Every structure is written in C-alpha cells, then in structure tokens.
C-alpha cells in the first residue's frame, strides 16, 4: 500500500480551514496595504505595481532616447532615376557671366556640379575652356554669396523686394529709372526685357561691359550698319597681324580664336605650311609672346601705327592715303608687314585691340583693301556677346548726375569699381534709390538700398545666342543653394507673371522651332538641343563695306590728339590678365593662385615696367613706387618685364577690390581709374617710396641657359628637314661585325638599360604636347587643380616656392636681334636682365610640364617604403597612404614636378583660402581623387581616375577604350588642342603616331629615364611672306 505522509493533522483530515488556507500564496496576509498606502487610504495592487514598473521602464527608455544619433546621410525616399552613386552625370549648359561666354558640359556627382568642360559640339569654344570658366564652378559653393533678399540691411522676402521695385517703377515718369545690365546674350531675356520696358516705360536700359569692345561695335555700325563683330577666321588666314589685340588671351572670343589660330599652325611633313603671325603691341601679351615676329610701339601712337599701316597698304593698293604724320617702327616693320599682308591679300587678317572707333574704322579699311571680308572676316553669323557702348554708359552717368533718374536697378555690374568714373558713379548712386541684383556684394551693391540674390549660372535655366544663329541652352545642374532667382525670374516677377522660367523658355523655343523649320516633334527637338547644349544655324546677315570719310577720321583723331608723333614721357596701359579678367571672379582662390602666363606672378597686380625704364630710374622687382597719372595717385609694387615698349608701364585690372571675399579683398590696387578707350594715360610722376614689397612668382629664373628643353626651328628649316632643330641624344653601340650603330634611347625605348625590360601588356599611357600649338594660356593649370583637388596655398606659400600645381607652364625668355637666329644669353642671377641691348625684342617659349611618368622613373627607386611605384600601364603611381614623406623622390625628379604637403592644407587656418576648408567649398572636391594629408608627396598621375573610368567603360562595352575616349583634364580643357593623351600600345592611336613624328623629343631624355611625355618642337614662321 502506498505510504502517505502528512504535515499536520489538519492536512490529514482535510479540514475546511486547511483547504481554504492552502489555496493562498502566503500563510499570512502580506502588509502591502500598510506599506504602500500613505495613510490616505490609497489602495494599490500587484497590478498597480506592474503598472508602475512599466511606466518607470518606459520613462527611462524614453529618457535614454533623448540623444538619438542624428543621421545626416538621409537616403533618398524616392531615388532619382539618373543619379547613381559614384557615377557622374553630365549636363550641357551655357556659361555667361557678363563677359565670358562658353558652351559647357557640367559634370555632377551625387547632384553637385564639380567640374566644367568645354562643349565639343560648340563651334565657339570647341571643347576648350579658359581658366576663368574652369574656375567659375567654385562660385556656386561660395559662402559669401548673398543668400536672401534684403531691404535696407534687413532680411526680406522676394515679394517685398519685388514690391519695392514695382512701386518705384509704377509711378515713375518715362525714362526715369536706369536699368544697368551686362550684355544680354539670351533671346529669352531680350524678349522679357522688351516686355518689361513696355510695361514700365520708366525703365531706361543701358548695357555696361566692364571690358567693352565699344570701339569696334561703333566702327562696324558705321562701316556695315551692324553693331557686332564678324566671325574672325584665324584658321583660314595666312598672314595674321594683331595690333594690340590679345586675341589669344582676352580679346573678344579668345578660346575660339586659340583653337583656330593653332589649327592654322600645324605644319606636317606632307604640307609644311602654317600661318605667319605678326604682332605689333605695347606690352608683352600672351598673343605677342606666341607671334612669329613681334614689334613694339608706343601706346600713345597706336592710332598713328594703324594710320601708317593703312597708308602703306593703300600705297601698294594704289588707293588714296590718309593725311597722317609718317611713323615707322624698328626694322621698317610697318612697310614690311604691309607688303606681307598684300602678298597674302584675301587670306590675311588684321585685328586691332583699340577701343577708338576711328582706329577700328581704319582697320576695317585695311581689311577691305586686302579683300579679307568674306574670307577671313565673315559677316554671315556675327558675334554679339559684348554689346556695351561706352558713350551710352557715360551718358547714363551724366544723366544720373543731372538727376534724371529717380531710381537705379543694377543687375550684376559694378560701375563703382570697374568704371574709370567709379567715384562719380559712387557719388551719383548715393543720391538715388538703388536696387541691386547680384551674386555677391560689391562696391556698387554696397550703395543699394535693397539687394536681391542672383542664382549662379549653374543653378539657372536660360539660353544664349552669342553669334547670330548660334544658340545654346543653359540648364541648372543643381537647385539654387540659397533663396536666389535668375534675372529672368526677377523680370517675370516684376511683370507679375506666375509662370516658371522653364515654361517661358520652352515656350519661346516652341515659337523659335517653327521658325527654324522643326516641323513635327518638338519634344524630341527640345530633348536633343538640351542634350547637345547648342543649336547652330548659319546666320543670314548680308552686309557690305560702306567705306568712310578719311578726312573726317583723321580730323577726329587729330582733335583727340591721337596722331601726335612726339614721344616723351611714360605711358600707363591697363591690361587684363588671363586669370583675373575684369576681376569679377577675384573671390575664387584658384584664379588668384593661377600664375599669370607671362610674369608667372600670382596673388597680386603690379606695375610692369620695361627694362629700360627700370634701368634709367633705378627700379627693381618689388620696389614700391608712387605713381600719378591723370590726377590719380596710387602706390604699386614694380615688376620689371622684358618685352615692354621702353616708355611703357602696365597695370592689370581686376584687383584692389573691397568685396572680393577672403581670397580677393585688398589684393593689389584698382586700375580702373586709368582705363581709357584710347588705351593709355600719361604718367605725370613716378617715384620710389623706398619701401619694398614681395611679389609671389612661381618661376623666378627666366632664361633657358642654352639648354635644349624647348626645341625650336623655323618653318623654312622645317620644310627642308622635318627633324630640324631636334637633335636627339644617341649612344653608339658596337655591333658584332665591329661597326657601330647609333641607338636613340628616346626612340627605341628600352634599347639601352640596366633595368629589366618592362612589359606593358595592356596599355602604355603616354602624352604628346605640341609646343607649336600651346599658347601658354594656363587653362590646363586650373583644370588640373579643379579635377585633382589640388590645394590652394596662398601668397605666402607661393613666395616660399611651394605652390602645389601638378601641371605648370614653364616660360622662358630669349633675347635675339630681329629674329635673326636664336642666340641665347646666359643670365645667371635670378630676376636679372642687365646687359641686354634690345629688351623689348624678346621671344618667349612656353612649355607645359607635368609628371613625365618615366618608364625608368628616378623617383621610384629611391623611395624607401615603395610609396611610388610603377603600374603595369606605364604610370608612375603615388600611394599617398604609404608615403612617409622623405622627399627623396622630389629631389631626384629631373623635371621637379613633385609637390609636397608641407602643411595640413585642409585644416591649418593659415590656408583659409583652400576651398577644402569650408563645408560648402568641400562640395566642389572631386570624390574620385583623394584629398592628401599633411606630410605626403603628390603629383600628376595622368588623371588616373579618368583612365580607370575609361577602362571600366570599355570593359562594360567589351572593348578596348577607343583612342581619344580617355582624356586628361589638361587635355580636355586645352583651347589649342596642344595635348594628346593615349595608349602607346595601340599603334593607331594619335599619341603613337605623334611619338614617331620627326618633331618629337623628350626633355632630358639623355638621362634615359624614358619619359612618357614627349614634346613636338616649336616651329616659328620667321620668313616674310613674298608675293
């Protein structure tokens, strides 16, 4: 039987009490009640306990959630279809800032524009892009931009701002509100302007160009009835004469002209012909430094030079001469040049930079006598980017002074800074109600009672017609970063129209499309022109030369004292630099740090004085002088410059601004007070102050010391022997039969070497640079800087000789006599030219130098940690992460192209100009290129990121990258097409063919470092053209 144990009698007996008690959890009632209640009779249960627990827990949890990590990377809720991380998107657009026009391709990465390239479909810039447009992309990411509309210093809404303007416009009498704008190239803007003016008759619209070509426009209006500039065909011209026209640098449409000029100067073995370029000028311009023959004249005698040339041509042509005093330049230059121009009549071209209408009329007369109209000067699609008339601008100023205007609307121009009458403008503007529409504050905008932020070009919809019949579209690459609008949007606002500017643009194109004969599918047409960026139709202008009254011209010139033969005193010439232009982009540090192509100086303007003046007045580089000209006094540092006419001083415009941000404010002095349409002012006094000033130059040794780094020949010699001037080093090697054979290590690579022969199985990247095409403009320097995140280091570091540019353009001077041979003087002291007889007769050589990617690279062997190594494709790779910074590689580089990160440029406050130091500025960095840390070496890699992208593209398509599909940044931006990059392993590639050209050589190839960059000799066409 089962045993049974019990604990108590009650259990055994299963009494009622026991059964009742046993169902309870605790033998005794717990004193919860007395514990929980505070005596007020609040009852709480276990349920309550759990509630309290739950509340406490969730309260603690909520409190703990207070500092939720903020996730800044917010994924797209709706992923834009076209944006793939790490893949760039390209948009065709148009750049126009009031002076520079370019059809561009905008490279965007993850929605931000990071680089501009030239649009190859555009006949104007043909893929080239000048330095300023290259750098303009940084203007989007500018923290100093005006971000909100403001009225009298107070933040306002757009409605308020527009309301203020409308109020001033509505009640005003006809022509009492001055609207000052830059040239208007957009057909849409033009039609909106018309509507605006008809709606508000109070508006008087005046176009103001900071650098006007007013003289040519007025002359052409008189000669042809068209205030425009014909298409100049430097490619078709056999003899080109530039008179003070820097057409390769800053005159009219330099990017287009550079492409044309260089395409007319590519002699080959088969057709050894090229244009002959003669330049008459006062200062050494980029164009003059590229001329075959160059003569200097006194700037005050420009009109006289043109008149004498007219007479010389007229004499040959049997026409009536002008009544002008006779003048001849050194070496009978005018008579000689007239003969050459006549010999090439019909295919010659004379251009002049003068802004005096009478002088331009004479130039038109010369071109007409030479029969150049219709061939090298083509009126069918005239160029109409710059439209400003100096006379209208000065009229506007006097009207303003006389109180005719009650209000002024200033749209993106800066008369106070950029006009010669700047102080008068300032005074006059203070008296009226001024409205400003601008990207950035400037001297004029500071006088406005209300300011409105303008959208950057890359944030805007728009169009342009830079040439008649040549259209291009502007589309935004990024949404406006600030509360800004385009000028077209502002006009729509003023008109009270609610449409979006995009619709207005599209509708205007629907109207235009029917005129252009686009029959059916507008959408497809629209998509195509938006994709292409340009639409080019032949213009229809038909004009003929009307001739002119020569006595009226000479009388007028005599009245303005421009035909005087006296040659006393110093002249001051105001010119514009390639990097700075008129200074509207002075806040962009890339342009400040871009060395001037001629002086190699950056971060300053300075008074260029001729070597003769320097000697006679005891001036040397960096001396401060006090200069007084036409009543204006300034203190400026001196830079002694060869190539200047003896009695000439020159000062660049675009400097001395008060509102150019941290990069440009206070840099240099303002030259605008001395801008004259005649091109010069007389210097009343020039004296040393005794102080000195340091001018930062990236090159301080200016002659080539007789070394053959830049090889040159003349066209005559080239025609006789294509390899003339190109003596290449060789080694005599004994053959088995005892004879010796010349082996050219630069040609048959790896012929002589201690090293193991390198096999480049896939690609072998190389570059050929045609020194005959390169003008030295420096567009590549900025392009490379933008592409490769090259830091800006500032003036002090340039003075310390530590600029970081991966590509530089070496510029050498050579002094010879009348172009007879190329004798080279040795100049051993830095910045020293003493003992040169004719310092204005200088010939100039340009040579772009970047890493040569040597096959036997001296840098590679000396690195102790293998931070720079050779790739299987011939690239000399820099492994930033591995670099410890011994700098032996830089010492051992024969080309001195390696650049060291001396400091932490990305966070050391000394380098505040570096775009990478601000949150907004960092947006412009190329995500494909590492931003280098302090203490590592860097250098050109042939844009390895582009090579890689090109190879991946080829891989995707299952083929080798097509020759020319991979372009380096320098190559792509080059307006002259001087740089060719490609694969040496592909015998059909252009670079392979160029490497076998008779003109090709490598710099210091006798070292047998086997550079992968080769140069083509420069050919000068020094022989006068005979009839």
């Amino acid at each position, binding site marked *: 039987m089962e045993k049974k144990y019990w604990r108590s009698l009650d259990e055994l007996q299963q009494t009622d009490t026991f059964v009742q008690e046993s169902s309870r959890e605790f033998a005794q009632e717990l004193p919860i009640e007395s514990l929980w209640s505070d005596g007020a009779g609040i009852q709480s249960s276990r349920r309550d306990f759990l509630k309290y627990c739950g509340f406490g827990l969730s309260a603690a949890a909520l409190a703990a959630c207070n500092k939720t990590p903020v996730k800044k990377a917010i994924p797209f809720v709706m992923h834009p279809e076209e944006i793939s991380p790490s893949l760039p998107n390209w948009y065709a657009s148009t750049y126009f800032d009031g002076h520079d026009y370019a059809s561009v391709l905008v490279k965007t990465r993850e929605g931000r524009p990071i680089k501009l390239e030239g649009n190859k479909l555009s006949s104007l810039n043909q893929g080239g892009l000048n330095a300023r447009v290259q750098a303009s992309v940084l203007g989007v990411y500018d923290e100093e931009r005006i971000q909100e509309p403001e009225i009298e210093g107070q933040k306002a809404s757009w409605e308020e701002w527009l309301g203020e303007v409308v109020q001033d416009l509505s009640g005003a009498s006809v022509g009492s509100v001055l609207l000052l704008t830059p040239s208007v190239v957009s057909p849409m803007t033009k039609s909106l302007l018309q509507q605006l003016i008809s709606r508000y008759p109070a508006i008087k619209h005046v176009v103001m160009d900071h650098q006007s070509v007013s003289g040519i426009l007025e002359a052409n209006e008189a000669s042809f009835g068209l205030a425009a500039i014909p298409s100049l065909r430097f490619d078709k011209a056999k003899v080109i004469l530039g008179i003070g026209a820097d057409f390769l640098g800053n005159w009219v449409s330099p990017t287009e002209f550079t492409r044309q000029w260089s395409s007319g100067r590519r002699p080959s073995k088969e057709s050894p012909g090229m244009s002959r370029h003669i330049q008459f000028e006062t200062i050494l311009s980029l164009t003059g430094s590229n001329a075959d023959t160059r003569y200097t004249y006194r700037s005050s005698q420009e009109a006289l030079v043109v008149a004498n040339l007219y007479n010389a041509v007229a004499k040959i042509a049997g026409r009536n001469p002008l009544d002008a005093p006779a003048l001849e330049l050194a070496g009978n230059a005018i008579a000689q040049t007239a003969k050459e121009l006549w010999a090439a009549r019909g295919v010659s071209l004379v251009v002049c930079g003068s802004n005096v209408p009478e002088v331009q009329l004479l130039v038109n007369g010369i071109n007409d006598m030479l029969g150049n109209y219709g061939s090298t000067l083509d009126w069918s699609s005239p160029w109409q980017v710059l439209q400003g008339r100096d006379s209208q601008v000065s009229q506007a100023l006097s009207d303003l002074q006389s109180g005719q205007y009650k209000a002024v609307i200033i749209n993106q121009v800066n008369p106070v800074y950029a006009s010669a009458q700047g102080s008068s403008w300032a005074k006059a503007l203070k008296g009226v109600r001024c409205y400003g529409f601008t990207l950035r504050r400037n001297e004029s905008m500071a006088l406005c009672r209300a300011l409105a932020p303008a959208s950057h070009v890359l944030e805007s919809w728009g169009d342009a017609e830079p040439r008649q019949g040549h259209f291009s579209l502007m589309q935004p690459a990024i949404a406006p970063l600030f509360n800004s609008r385009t000028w077209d949007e502002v006009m729509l606002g003023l008109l009270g129209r609610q449409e979006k500017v995009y619709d207005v643009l599209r509708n205007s194109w629907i109207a235009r499309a029917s005129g252009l004969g686009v029959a059916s599918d507008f959408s497809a047409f629209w998509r195509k022109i938006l994709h292409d960026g340009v639409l080019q139709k032949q213009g229809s202008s038909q004009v003929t030369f009307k001739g002119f009254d020569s006595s009226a011209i000479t009388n007028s010139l005599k009245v303005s004292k421009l035909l005087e033969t006296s040659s006393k005193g110093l002249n001051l010439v105001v010119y514009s630099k390639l990097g700075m232009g008129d200074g509207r982009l002075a806040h962009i540090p890339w342009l400040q740090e871009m060395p001037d192509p001629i002086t190699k100086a950056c971060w300053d303007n300075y008074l260029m004085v001729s070597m003769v003046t320097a000697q006679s007045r005891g001036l040397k580089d960096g001396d401060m002088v006090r200069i007084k000209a036409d009543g204006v006094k300034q203190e400026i540092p001196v830079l002694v410059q060869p190539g200047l006419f003896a009695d000439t001083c020159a000062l660049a415009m675009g400097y001395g601004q008060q509102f150019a941000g941290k990069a440009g404010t206070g840099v240099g002095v303002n030259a605008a007070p001395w801008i004259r349409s005649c091109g010069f002012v007389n210097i009343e006094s020039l004296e040393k102050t005794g102080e000195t000033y340091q001018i930062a130059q990236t090159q301080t*040794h200016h002659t080539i010391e007789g*070394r053959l780094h830049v090889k040159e020949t003349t066209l005559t010699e080239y025609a006789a022997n294509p390899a003339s001037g190109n003596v290449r080093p060789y080694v005599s090697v004994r053959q088995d039969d005892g004879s010796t054979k010349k082996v050219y290590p630069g040609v048959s690579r790896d012929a002589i070497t201690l090293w193991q022969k390198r096999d480049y199985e896939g690609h072998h990247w190389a570059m050929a640079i045609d020194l005959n095409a390169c003008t030295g403009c420096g567009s590549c320097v900025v392009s490379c800087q933008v592409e490769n995140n090259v830091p800006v280091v500032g003036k002090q570091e340039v003075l310390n000789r530590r600029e970081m540019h991966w590509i530089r353009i070496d510029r050498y001077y050579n002094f010879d006599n009348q172009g007879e041979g190329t004798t080279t003087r040795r100049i051993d002291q830095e910045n020293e030219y003493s003992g040169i007889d004719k310092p204005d007769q200088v010939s100039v050589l340009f040579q772009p130098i970047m890493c040569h990617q040597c096959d036997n690279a001296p840098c590679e*062997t000396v690195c102790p940690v293998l931070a720079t190594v050779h790739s299987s494709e011939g690239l000399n790779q820099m492994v930033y992460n591995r670099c410890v910074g011994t700098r032996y590689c830089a010492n051992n580089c024969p080309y001195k192209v390696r650049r060291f990160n001396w*400091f932490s440029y990305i966070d050391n406050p000394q380098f505040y100009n570096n775009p990478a130091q601000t949150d907004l500025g960092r947006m412009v960095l190329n995500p494909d290129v590492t931003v280098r840390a302090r203490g590592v070496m860097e250098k050109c890699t042939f844009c390895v990121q582009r090579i890689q992208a090109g190879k991946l593209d080829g891989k995707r398509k299952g083929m080798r990258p097509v020759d020319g599909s991979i372009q380096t940044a320098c190559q792509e931006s080059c307006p002259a097409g001087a740089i060719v990059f490609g694969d040496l392993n592909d015998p059909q590639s252009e670079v392979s063919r160029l490497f076998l050209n008779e003109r090709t050589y490598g710099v210091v190839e006798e070292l047998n470092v086997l550079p992968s960059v080769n140069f083509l000799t420069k050919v000068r066409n020094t022989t006068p053209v005979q009839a």
Partner: protein
Amino acid sequence: MFESPTRRPLITGKTSYSQITEDIIKPIEAKPTKWWYLGFTVSLAALGLWLLSVTYLLFTGVGVWGLNKTVDWGWDITNFVWWVGIGHAGTLISAVLLLFRQKWRTAVNRSAEAMTIFAVICAGSYPLLHAGRPWLIYWVFPLPNTYGSLWSNFNSPLLWDVFAISTYLTVSLVFWYVGLIPDLATIRDRAVGLRKKIYGLMSFGWNGSAKGWQRFESVSLILAGLSTPLVLSVHTIVSFDFATSVIPGWHTTIFPPYFVAGAVFSGFAMVQTLLIIMRKSMRLEQYITLNHIDVMNKIILVTGSIVGSAYITEFFIAWYSAVPYEQYAFVNRAFGPYWWAYWTMMTCNVITPQLFWSRKLRRSLTASFIISIFVNIGMWFERFVIIVTSLHRDYLPSSWLMYSPTWVEIGMYIGSLGLFFTLFFLFAKFLPVIAVAEVKSIYKTSSEEEIAKTASKEGINLQEAHAHTNGAH
C-alpha cells in the same frame, strides 16, 4: 712588450697606477666644478630650444622649415650627414687603431667613442624628423605585416641608410660599453652606498680576474674586427644617398671614398675640439699630451688633403665628362649665388688643415683648437654645398630657385648641439672620460717616468734622441 725609450711619452709627469686611478676617477666622485655647471646649463638651454623647435615642427609640419618645391632637403640632411661624419672618429680610433696597436689611442678612445654615440643619436634624429609623417617612419623597417607584398624598397639608399646607421649605433654602443666595464668596476670598488650598487650593476660583476681580462681582450678584438668595415661602410652608404641619384653634383662615383675621408676628417676635428677642452677643464694634461694632439692633427692633415683632392677631382671630372649639366653644377657651386658657402668650405677644409704641415702649429693648443673648429664649420658647409647647391639648380631652369633656413631649422641645429653636449657633460660627470684600464696598460712602456728609467738602464740620452727623431712615434 719593449718600447723604444726614444719615443715620446704618452703619459707625462710623475704618476703611478694609483695616481692614474685617482686622477681620472676623482672627478666622478667629487662635486662638479662650476665650469661643468655652466657648460651643462648652456647645453640644457640649447636642448630646450631643440625641444621647442621639434615640438613646433611635429605639430605643424615640415613646412615650418625653409624647404620648397625644388630644394626638398636642406639643413636637415646637411646636419644628418655632418653628425654622422662626426660620429666616425670614434670607431676609427677604437677599432682601427686598436688593430694597428696604436698606443696613443688609449687616452682618447673613450671620449671619442662617447662622442660617436652621441653624434649618431643627433644624426639619427634628422632622418626621423625630416619625414613628413615621422609617426609612420617605422615603415622603412622590413617589418612583417599583413599587407601582402608591401615591404621596404631594397633599391632605396635611404633603406640602406637605416641599416647602416642602426648597425653602426649598435656596434659602437656595445664596443663603448664593453670597454667601460673594467673602469666601472674600479669606480664601484671605490664607491659606497647607492653609488656602489649602481656602478656594481653596471660593471656586470667584473672581478679583474685573469680570465676576465683575457675574455675582455678577445671581445675587444672581435668588436674591433666587426667595427672596422663599418668605418668604411657607414659613410659610403650615406654617400649613396646622393651618388645613386640623377642630380648633377650628386651623381658621382667619387662620393664613397670622399665621404669616408671627409667623415674621418670631421670626426677627428670634433674629437680634437673636445679633447682640448677636456684636457684643460679636467686637468688631464698628463694623459692627453701634446703628442696626442700632434698625432691627431696629422690625421686631420692627411684626411683633409684627401678631401681637398676629391674636390679638385670632382671639378676635373665635371669638365672631362662633357656633360653640360654636370659642368654647370660645379661652376654654379663656385660662382653661383651660393659661392660664399663653397668658398667657406674650400677655405676651412682645404686651406686651413694645410697649416698643420708646421710642427709648431700642430703642437699649439690654440692653433689646433681654432683649426678643429674651422674644419667642423667647413665640413658642415661641404654637406650644405653638396645638398643645396646641387638641388637648387638642376635640369630645368624654370625650377631654379633659392633656399634659406627658418628659425626652426637653425633652432634644431643649435638644439642638436645642445643635445650632444648635454649628453657629453653627463658622460663626463658620471663616467671616466679616459679609459683608466687601458692607460694603465701603457704605463710601463709609455709613461715619462718609466721611459726615463729604461733610458737610464740602456744609457740613452733622451734629449739627444728626441732632437734626432724630431718627436716621431
């Protein structure tokens, strides 16, 4: 071993074994003189400047120096080579002269070796600090790592440098320390208390037994044998830093012998400078005699002449090579913008040592001191000339430019002298500056007293004999 009594004595005056111990060990036990305090304070101040400059350098970047895009080495590597050169005398004296049984070395070898070690420490600081990212400099060592094939570049002379200098420092340090052991034991035996414990520990239980001495001698010889090739190799390899490059003025096959001679030259000059100061300030005239000074000067004369010939040979070869870059490099050295550096070098290194053909000047303390300083200045400029004038104008004239140092570079140079002298003053205070045991080993043969005894035994008139041999050894 018999020593001809006609040789000039290497220990002058009245002395004895115990007196030698007393003379040399006493300064270690006594309180330092006020001259020591003065010197030490100045050195410490200079060391402070070094610390300041180095801290600023490390926090800011190599850009605080005056280097630029063309001249990437300046005072940093100049100082490096200069200090390495100075560090050459120690090994030569202790190793080569030991092998050649040159007894006069016993008085100078200890301080020469100490100097070597301190100089190499100073030298070593430069390659470390000149690097852009010194915290990663250990990457030059062929350390095993997880990066696959990523290793040091054995083609690079900078890597050879790492091995050469570190080997040299190690061997010199061991050699110096081994030589110190018997003397440390002597100090231990005279000391009490904590000092006895410390020196006892440092002397490795040396008990002066015959076996101990025998082993000591063997180790010395072995180390001397190991060090001898280093005398040639270290500066040869340092010269490869330049010779293996493509830069005109650097790319020169004469560099190895020329650098070695130059190093010995500058090293002896530095030893000379220090000996003359020490001899005077620590009253060691009996042990560091004019004969020692004279012998040292002769070596300076010989090596100085080798260096001078090398300079002239370089010029000849530059002309003979017909390489325009090479020719220009040398013309530029002598007549370019850095002509003053070149002519300072020529004056100090080629002309001044030639004065030592005069016996009078060789035995003049003042002349020896001044010339030794001149040689050190000249040898500094030699390195400056080679490095800077070659770099500042090489192939492409567009990159030609000038280099000048900043206060940081100057501070680091003065500071490294501070580091050197601080270490040297500490050495002079805490360790015997003359190898007591070694000097004792020549007491019987080369002290004035004993020589006089031998001479009288042999019946030689010493005065007559000395006049006859003109003091030759």
